[in-house]
């Protein structure tokens, strides 16, 4: 392999150098594009403009209001979607014929684009938080259901026998033996579910809503405030990465 000749530390240094050079090159290319006039005015705003817009929206109370709305909806969507997903996993693992019967439907429905259900949710819940939470919950359910079921199926049979020998009830078995043993899978499911719930809620806000971060983004787009749009997307991606990292940190390493 190419890196064998390099010492590990030197390889690491070179990698950092490449990273820095790439970022610098991307930034220069971006600025060149912004100034080139190749694009219709404002499509590629200069980084200075984006930085200014970022500072602007960070001090704007509207951002925090929207963040609160979206955050609450994502949290509610996660609670509902993951709760149902874990319940599906527990029942499917406890009664194998049920797990086997419905797993394939879950498996194949999981990757279908959930956003197409939005018109149905709109009919059911009207425009508002209910529709957005339902969209997020629907998106969050599938990864959690799949992760929990597969995690529970891999629980060490020795642990199950220990639980049985202590005459644990079904509830105790679920809470004390199965869920802790499947914790890794459940947390992996939670990370995926978070991503899907966030996308579900934000897309619902973008498509039909009048509150939240998604609505804020599409307002910027509609008013052609492109630097602000970039800045807001940066904020959203950074927040998503932070939450992702936090859940990753909770996940026990083996």
């Amino acid at each position: 392999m190419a890196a064998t000749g390099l010492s590990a530390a030197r390889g690491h240094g070179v990698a950092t150098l490449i990273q820095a050079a790439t970022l610098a090159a991307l930034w220069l290319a971006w600025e060149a594009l912004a100034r080139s006039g190749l694009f219709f005015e404002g499509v590629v705003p200069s980084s200075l403009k984006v930085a200014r817009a970022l500072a602007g929206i960070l001090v704007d109370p509207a951002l925090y209001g929207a963040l609160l709305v979206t955050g609450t909806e994502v949290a509610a969507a996660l609670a509902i979607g993951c709760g149902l997903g874990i319940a599906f996993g527990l029942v499917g693992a406890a009664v194998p014929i049920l797990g086997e019967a419905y797993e394939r439907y879950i498996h194949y429905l999981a990757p279908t684009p959930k956003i197409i259900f939005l018109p149905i949710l709109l009919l059911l819940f009207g425009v508002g938080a209910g529709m957005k939470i339902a969209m997020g919950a629907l998106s969050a359910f599938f990864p959690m259901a799949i992760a929990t079921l597969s995690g529970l199926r891999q629980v060490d049979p020795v642990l199950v026998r220990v639980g049985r020998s202590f005459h644990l009830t079904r509830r105790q078995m679920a809470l004390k033996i199965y869920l802790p043993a499947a914790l890794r899978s459940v947390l992996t499911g939670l990370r995926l579910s978070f991503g899907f719930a966030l996308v579900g809620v934000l897309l619902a806000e973008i498509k039909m809503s009048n509150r939240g971060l998604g609505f804020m983004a599409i307002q910027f787009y509609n008013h052609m405030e492109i630097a602000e749009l970039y800045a807001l997307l940066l904020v959203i991606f950074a927040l998503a990465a932070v939450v992702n990292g936090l859940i990753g940190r909770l996940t026990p390493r083996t």
Partner: protein
Amino acid sequence: MRPATILGAATLLAAALALEALVGAGLLPTYIFVRPSTMLATIGDLFREEDLAGRFLLTFSSTFLSAGLATVVGVPVGWALYRYRVLSAAYAGGIAALASAPLILLYPLFLVAFGRSQATIVAMGFLVGVVAVILKTEEGLIEVRPVLRAVGSSFRLTRAQLFWKIELPATVPAIFSGIRLALVFALINVVGIEFLINFGGLGQLIADLADRYETAGMYAAILFVIIVSVVFFWMTEKLERWLRPA
């Protein structure tokens, strides 16, 4: 048939029949719910009146174009990351982070650059697919069995021969896993963006029918998209298993 398969199919059938009965008896409001029999019958109307076949082709051509571009770009990049490990050290973390980022939210930016057009849809499909192809290609090349490379060396193959005769064929199943993921991600995003920007094939049809309050047609279109995507995922999965017998 296995009992579990029968149970699953029976549940689905029972749910459809229950919905049919409840809507038929007027227990569920018809402006929200539609009888499954009406949905199925309306799919026929969609073929006749809304050019469902044409839209199907449009959505799938966008999907295949996105995944094709993702393959053309992703395989060489994945190979470069494998060949020059320092590049992998520099970029793999960032690429993996992209894989878990909510990329679909970038669509307004592409909309700004390309307008409401096929280009926006394909660009988004490409973006979500290329990450998967890169990561799977690199992973596949790393996992080529050392004994195969040893055979190559014992025949004194050049670096290029080693790649074309040994490494690439051994990596085909992994690359196909990447292409399959690219197809799946691309389809999800293509339909989603079509729906969101009200442009293009199947996704646009759903948005359009919903806007026109054609509830039965909307349900029929959603059902059609679900059936089509499930069949598509199932087929690509079978193909992947066939390519990867282990």
